[in-house]
């Protein structure tokens, strides 16, 4: 199978819309087909990574748990935008996964290197 570099750009907060969950599902599908997958989180997308989601009250699946399966799918390139964290008063200590933090300009360069960029 041809392997391509896929980047999934996540810009939406979790739960308010279905985008975050849909993105994660497509990431897992692409990874299951052994593609070279990375995930970038910017703008409200960084909230997806905030730890301590307790979704019992709103009766939806907490996908913080599913992030834990990314390693099994060999998805280890998780990029986060520094500016988006700062604007929201977050640091990497607040996040559920180990991530690599980049400036927006550096993320732009990483986007340029991809074969496919999908925005959610």
């Amino acid at each position, binding site marked *: 199978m041809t392997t391509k570099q896929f980047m999934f750009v996540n810009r939406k907060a979790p739960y*308010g819309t279905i985008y975050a969950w849909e993105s994660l599902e497509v990431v897992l599908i692409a990874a299951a087909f052994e593609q070279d997958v990375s995930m970038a989180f910017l703008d409200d997308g960084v*909230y997806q990574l905030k730890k301590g989601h307790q979704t019992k009250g*709103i009766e939806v699946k907490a996908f913080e748990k599913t992030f834990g399966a990314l390693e099994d799918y060999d998805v280890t390139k998780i990029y986060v935008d520094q500016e988006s964290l700062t604007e929201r008063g977050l640091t990497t200590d607040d996040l559920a996964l180990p991530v690599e933090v980049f400036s927006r300009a550096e993320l732009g360069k990483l986007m340029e290197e991809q074969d496919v960029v999908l925005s959610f």
Partner: protein
Amino acid sequence: MLHIINKSPYDRPAFYSALKTGEGAILLIEDGVYAAAKGGVAEAKLKAATDKFKFYALTADLEARGIADRVVDGVTLVNYAGFVDLVAEYKTNQSWL
């Protein structure tokens, strides 16, 4: 009037727009609860308006997003029953799209 905001202030201007309407109450639900989280840019805007608005946020939505432990002082937490009470208490209410 009770303004109900369900959009993140970092994504859409609904929260800031509602603040400019003068006075009343603002209930933050769904992604709107991010306006009530400490440390972000929105915190100062909320704090600056506490003399004109009463602020409420839905606990279940704060918990789901992992921010129930960092709510800005001056925001009252409500459950779903409290949400209903607020809607009943105000003569008019508006859900900002």
